[in-house]
């Protein structure tokens, strides 16, 4: 088929109703403005992480990914809720524990792991490994991430549930935020993770 519908429309005289050059120019200007606004508001890559766990092993992944994404130039927010709050708690973050039960990869059987004091033993073992391998500590990763512009958010509902005080958290942690803030961040983000 060689017939072009737009040509046919023009031939039929629809062109009379077509907008003038001035109207088109105004429309283009309008569109260019809204495009500029849209790209300015959404420039750069974003990552949103939800951190829900507060054991020593589970504190690492969100912090390693957050600081690395920041190095890639991502705007990163990490929303901490429930036990994930402990990662941002200045005092508690230095004493995160590794559970000696519930992980079949641990060198101790669950029945032994359940004995009193065993969490302390497994945590010390892991802390020694972290030290021996020059792996960054949780505190170092938090400070580094903050320096790189990562936004750490502490869920207000769980701050109150856990009985924490806003002053308990590292300087720079954003409090007074809830699920809607997290959803907003996730909706805008290129990468969303729940840890």
């Amino acid at each position, binding site marked *: 088929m060689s017939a072009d519908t737009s040509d046919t429309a023009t031939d039929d005289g629809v062109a009379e109703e077509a907008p003038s050059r001035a109207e088109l120019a105004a429309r283009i200007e309008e569109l260019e403005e809204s495009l500029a606004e849209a790209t300015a508001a959404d420039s750069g890559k974003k990552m949103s992480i939800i951190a829900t766990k507060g054991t020593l092993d589970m504190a690492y992944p969100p912090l*390693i990914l957050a*600081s*690395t994404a*920041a*190095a*890639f*130039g991502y705007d990163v927010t990490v929303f901490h809720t429930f036990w994930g709050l402990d990662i941002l708690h200045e005092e508690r973050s230095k004493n995160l524990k590794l559970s000696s039960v519930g992980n079949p990869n641990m060198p101790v059987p669950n029945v032994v792991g359940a004995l009193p004091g065993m969490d302390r033993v497994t945590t010390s073992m892991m802390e020694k490994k972290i030290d021996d*391998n*020059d*792996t*960054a500590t949780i505190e170092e*990763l938090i400070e*580094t991430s903050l*320096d*790189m512009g990562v936004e750490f958010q502490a869920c207000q509902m769980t701050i109150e549930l856990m009985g924490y005080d806003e002053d308990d958290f590292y300087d720079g942690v954003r409090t007074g935020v809830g699920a809607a803030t997290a959803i907003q961040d996730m909706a805008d983000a290129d990468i969303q993770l729940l840890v």
Partner: protein
Amino acid sequence: MSVEFDIAETLDVKGASCPMPVVKTKGAIDELSEGEVLEVLATDPGSMSDLDGWAAGTDGVEMVEQVEGDDVYKHYVRKTE
């Protein structure tokens, strides 16, 4: 070396493991001017893949060369903007 370039700065991250070589490289490259090359000395074997991936996925930097030495991995990153 296959490519000729001047080294503007050297970052020593020997001993450090993931994510620090990448994170510290980012910090050091921010201090350089456009066109300058940063030398990164690392002992983390993961730094070969990680720094290459970081350079490929980050605006304003390019991996010039990576050299796998006996104990030290050397990376040369140029700031391009």
